[in-house]
């Protein structure tokens, strides 16, 4: 096969990977882009989630103070967890249960402890995640088939990247090629597609590889294959729960006391999430990031004595787990604060535009090719493959 016809085939493969499903790919890319900044969008829309600092530069409240403030302001609720979002312009999120059996998140000012509001009935973040991640198809038994539908896209996306680079001759010289603005839409979208593709190589690789991991993850789960080194969750032994004469729950250790105990064992752990015991035998859990920003560490304590029952640290992970557990934060851009998210957002938009520009190139080119074919008035239309490939060699 000649070099030329081989590149024609690569070009066709590149076109066909996304073209028949372009709208699906576009919506998945776009909702994913929205999901990256969904927390920021809520920040813009809902003033209650903001962590406004009062005058006088007060220090952050500690977790015990926050818990006391919430219980004072809302004696009707039962607190289940407290978390401090990564970015300090967000209020603390306190998960609570209400007497009517509903649950919600309270947004609490980290400086004053004031309960500023609660999560809206429509959870924008969850909705964009569900739309992007599994096309809203419910999880009934194992992973939702919508999850498979979306995560399967990782493979053609990876193939698009590879074939795109194969058909773009000497692509490494194209990073600073200007986009031609005045030579018609076909030229403009072609230049745009190539230039944004080049600068997005790393991003497309990250998204498609991590996306393919989501497919593998679902397959592993649904075929009951575990690669986890984590043991079953611990419980507080019956003997370790104090027996009390009065019919009342024995007091729990302070959260800050628990964090201090964990810090002795895990230096450098920034406690950002606290889960209170879910029943009499359930431990108190402290979690947070360590030196490796993509993964969480956690420890479980006996809530009555403060004794550490188990921990899940970076050093407990296998090499394989370092890879697999890094996949999700790499996909979502949620591991280094606002700026990483903004980079993911911008490249997510670019990727969505690449789907659109690819489609536009095809339709413009096909229109041209059709016009040319009609002029020639052939007896039979030539196979689509040839029309496309020949028009490509002109461009």
């Amino acid at each position: 096969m000649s070099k030329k016809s081989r590149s024609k085939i690569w070009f066709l493969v590149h076109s066909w990977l996304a073209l028949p499903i372009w709208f699906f790919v576009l919506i998945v890319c776009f909702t994913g882009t929205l999901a990256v900044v969904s927390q920021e969008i809520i920040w813009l829309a809902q003033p209650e989630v903001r962590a406004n600092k009062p005058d006088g530069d007060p220090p952050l409240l500690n977790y015990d103070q926050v818990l006391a403030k919430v219980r004072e302001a809302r004696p009707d609720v039962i607190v289940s967890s407290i978390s401090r979002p990564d970015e300090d312009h967000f209020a603390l999120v306190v998960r609570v249960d209400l007497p009517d059996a509903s649950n919600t998140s309270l947004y609490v000012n980290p400086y004053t402890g004031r309960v500023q509001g609660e999560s809206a009935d429509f959870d924008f973040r969850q909705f964009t995640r569900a739309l992007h991640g599994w096309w809203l198809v419910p999880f009934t038994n194992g992973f939702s088939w919508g999850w498979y539908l979306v995560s399967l896209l990782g493979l053609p996306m990876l193939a698009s990247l590879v074939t795109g680079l194969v058909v773009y001759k000497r692509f490494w010289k194209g990073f600073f090629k200007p986009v031609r603005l005045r030579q018609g839409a076909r030229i403009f979208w072609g230049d745009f597609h190539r230039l944004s593709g080049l600068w997005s190589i790393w991003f497309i690789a990250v998204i498609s590889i991590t996306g393919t991991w989501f497919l593998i993850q679902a397959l592993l789960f649904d075929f009951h294959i575990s690669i986890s080194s984590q043991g079953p969750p611990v419980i507080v032994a019956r003997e370790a729960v104090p027996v009390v004469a009065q019919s009342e729950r024995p007091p729990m250790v302070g959260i800050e006391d628990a964090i201090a105990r964990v810090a002795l064992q895990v230096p450098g752990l920034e406690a950002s999430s606290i889960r209170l015991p879910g029943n009499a035998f359930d431990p108190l859990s402290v979690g947070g990031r360590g030196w490796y920003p993509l993964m969480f560490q956690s420890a479980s304590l006996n809530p009555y004595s403060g004794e550490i029952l188990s921990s899940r640290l970076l050093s407990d992970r296998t090499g394989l787990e370092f890879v697999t557990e890094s996949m999700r934060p790499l996909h979502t851009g949620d591991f280094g604060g606002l700026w990483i998210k903004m980079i993911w957002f911008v490249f997510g938009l670019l990727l969505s535009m690449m789907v659109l520009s690819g489609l536009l190139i095809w339709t413009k080119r096909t229109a041209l090719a059709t016009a040319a074919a009609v002029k020639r008035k052939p007896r039979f239309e030539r196979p689509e493959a040839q029309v496309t490939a020949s028009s490509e060699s002109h461009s």
Partner: protein
Amino acid sequence: MSKAAVLPVTSPLRQFWLKWRFHINVLLLAIPLGFMPKYFSDAALFTGKLGLGERVAGEIPVGPWSLTLAEFRKEGPVLQGGAGYIKDFSGALCKSCISEVKATYLRIGKPRSLRAAGGIFFGSAYSMFASVPIPEKTSPDAELWVTMEGWDGSMHQASIPLSQASPATYQWLKQQGGTP
């Protein structure tokens, strides 16, 4: 492609196909649109906006206390891997007994001891969940036993017919043909 090539270029059907073939995938949008009502009703169920669960079985007096029992979903038990068939119940403690009750358990058949009291409820006293293994051979006429343990060491038990606690599980067991 080769089959298409034998059609004359003028066929309106073929022109329609050529024009729209790459846009048919817009119809995939029907999937999330179709599932949207289900998504929002599930979201309401998970945030407890629909109450304890899809069907409240009633308030069961257990000694000095009581438990409001509900089926999280109005359905029979679900096969969960090696754990076998599991039925999820939800429950709430009576307001006055919240501070006194240490733990609440559910089991098919009367427990022989506190250590075998069954699935323990997890969650806050306002809305807690328990998973109860349902062996396939269980008689449909079996009783669901509630065991409650106080912080002071006291223990109280009560039971209701499974057919009352979960009619769907009762029906499911009837189909399994279980015998007492």
